[in-house]
């Protein structure tokens, strides 16, 4: 591993996995952690427990802000284990000189999103550090949720499942990239940042036989599918032209040389459900504005173990790998 920590090690892809396994897993090693789920399942399978830290530039971006992101992120991780978010902690590190008004704005977004989830913040911490020690504000949230459906796990996907995606992909990553300094792009694109609690609850209430759920955050849908292929020891065959991508996201990808599959999402999740429940799951998802273009994208096979294959509409195929490196635009 590199002697210094590089940005690539935080990309949600391969370098990130190496950092986690070689440093953190090595030290903290235990059965719950090693399951590598979005949230830890504890207390005899009754509770889901998860934490996430948030840093984003710009803090306010089309579609959301760091506050909404901080609540959605942790609540979604809980929801992905079939849990209903209940209690959150909120810990902030603020750079000296940060605007109080912006802080209030951020906290207001957090409050609003907590209400959406039916969760409350029950403990918190604040630190203010000298200018330059952090980039404006970092937020950590940790959450506990009550598991509504047991047994959801990324380790149990089989050929009896199909893979769905809840909406068009790559919006958050493309929005943030277009908004960052040095990339002067104007677009009407908004982040997909949203809480997924209600969709997941509705799926559970409708009795959909869910095998696994994962929100496609850093590393995008590529990272989720590759993690699943490895964790469940399967091959995932994706029909490339079935993947929903908005025109704006596609345009940004074409221009900068990105793949929508590698871009981050903050309100988009991938589902593995039993084949017989595919239609039922789609019907439930189509009832929500945020997932009215949910669609089946892949089958599970054993053709290439632990690999993800992209099938083109004109009869070629290629491997889809875990994204590597820092997200950088191609030169030409």
């Amino acid at each position: 591993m590199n002697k210094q920590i590089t940005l690539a090690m935080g990309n949600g892809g391969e370098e990130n996995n190496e950092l986690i396994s070689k440093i953190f897993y090595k030290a903290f090693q235990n059965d719950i952690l090693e399951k590598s789920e979005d949230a830890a399942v504890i207390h005899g399978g009754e509770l889901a427990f998860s934490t996430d830290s948030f840093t984003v530039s710009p803090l306010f971006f089309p579609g959301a802000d760091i506050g909404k992101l901080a609540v959605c992120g942790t609540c979604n991780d809980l929801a992905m284990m079939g849990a209903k978010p209940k209690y959150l902690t909120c810990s902030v590190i603020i750079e000296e000189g940060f605007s109080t008004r912006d802080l209030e704005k951020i906290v207001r977004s957090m409050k609003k999103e907590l209400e959406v989830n039916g969760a409350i913040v029950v403990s918190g911490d604040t630190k203010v550090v000298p200018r330059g020690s952090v980039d404006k504000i970092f937020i950590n949230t940790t959450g506990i949720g009550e598991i509504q459906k047991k047994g959801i796990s990324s380790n149990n996907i089989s050929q009896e499942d199909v893979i769905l995606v809840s909406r068009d992909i790559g919006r958050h990553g493309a929005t943030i990239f277009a908004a960052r300094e040095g990339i002067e792009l104007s677009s009407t694109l908004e982040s997909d940042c949203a809480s997924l609690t209600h969709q997941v609850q509705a799926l559970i209430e409708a009795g959909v036989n869910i095998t696994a759920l994962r929100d496609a955050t850093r590393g995008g849908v590529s990272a989720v599918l590759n993690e699943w292929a490895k964790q469940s020891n399967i091959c995932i065959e994706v029909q490339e032209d079935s993947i929903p991508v908005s025109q704006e996201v596609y345009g940004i990808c074409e221009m900068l040389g990105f793949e929508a599959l590698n871009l981050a999402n903050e309100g988009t999740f991938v589902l593995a459900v039993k084949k017989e429940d595919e239609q039922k799951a789609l019907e439930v998802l189509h009832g929500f504005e945020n997932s009215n273009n949910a669609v089946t994208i892949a089958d599970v096979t054993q053709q290439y173990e632990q690999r993800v294959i992209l099938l083109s509409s004109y009869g070629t195929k290629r491997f889809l790998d875990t994204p590597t490196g820092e997200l950088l635009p191609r030169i030409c």
Partner: protein
Amino acid sequence: MMTTAKIEVSKVSELQLKDLYDGFRNPEVIQGFAKLIKEEAKKLEKPINIMEVCGGHTHSIMKFGLPQLLPKNINFIHGPGCPVCIMPKERIDHAYILAELEDTILVTLGDMIKVPGSKGSLQDARAKGADVRFVYSPLDTLKIAQENPDKKIIFFAIGFETTTPMTTSLIDIVIKKGIKNIFFHINHVTVPEVMVELIDSRDEHVDSYNNRIDAFLGPSHVSVITGSKIYEKFPKKYGRPVVVAGFEPVDVMEAILMIVKQFNEGRCELEIEYKRLVSRDGNLKAQALIEKYFEKASLFKWRGLGNVPQSGYKLKSEYAYLDAEKVYAEILPKEEIEDHKLCICGDILRGMAKPQECTIFGTACKPQTPLGSCMVSSEGACAAYYKYGNLI
């Protein structure tokens, strides 16, 4: 009349990106070309190797899985047309050393920052505290210079003929506006010279005697700037047909059909498939800007290929005050650094070997830890093979 006009305007505003690329990625058209190529290729007397010179083509070919649609007697040789891949360690070290200077911001284009030199990559320099930034357009450097008047901004300029005019535009503005804090480290390279090197070189660094290149797929965007005229000598003098092609899968398939037909019909010509953007003469204004500020360096060292005569640009001597290589001459090392001993990039680039034949491919040499030029960026042959595999 008014109403009609209005309707037309709204139609234009409804034009979607999809409308622009759909035809060039149409499955039936791609399959149609695959069928025609298969038929035509049956008549070939011997297998042909087509080099796509440009990294953008390599990327498209691998991303769209085009080799899977072609008969076995048509092979691709992935060329040296990826500007970050061919950057020698010496020059990346220059960037690294310049980035480490106090009160200095090193600016470059996107994926340059992940390529390792002998001291590490610019990403590593940044992790150690250097101020390294990437821009999408070189002109964004002006903003950085304006916001940091007390710092020196060094633009590490890279790329083929496509990006060269953007650098010269920046130089033009810097000179006209008298901006004092922007300097240039020029690493622009040119396509035709390296094509000659691959098929005709007999010097101490490179011997192309056994190269297996039968025809060239000419770069898309380079040719938009230069025009197709730069390839005229290849069919005439070197007996290699050239078809200038666009980057979309339909473009590449059509160009391959054109090349195969040339062989079957006993022709050896320069043809343009990418007619919607490429002319014989190219972008004259861009060419004039390049001419104004740059001259050819007698040698430019390419990672994997060694020194190639007349293949790189440098600033003309009257602009030496902007030239970081001159301004910082005292601290920039001049010694050559050898390529990795086991790396066979030179042979891969001449079509004499495939990436999988390299002993360190996928083991010691991976996209995250590239040792040779072809693994460095997603446009390099080895990186493309590593990423997309060779599934059939």
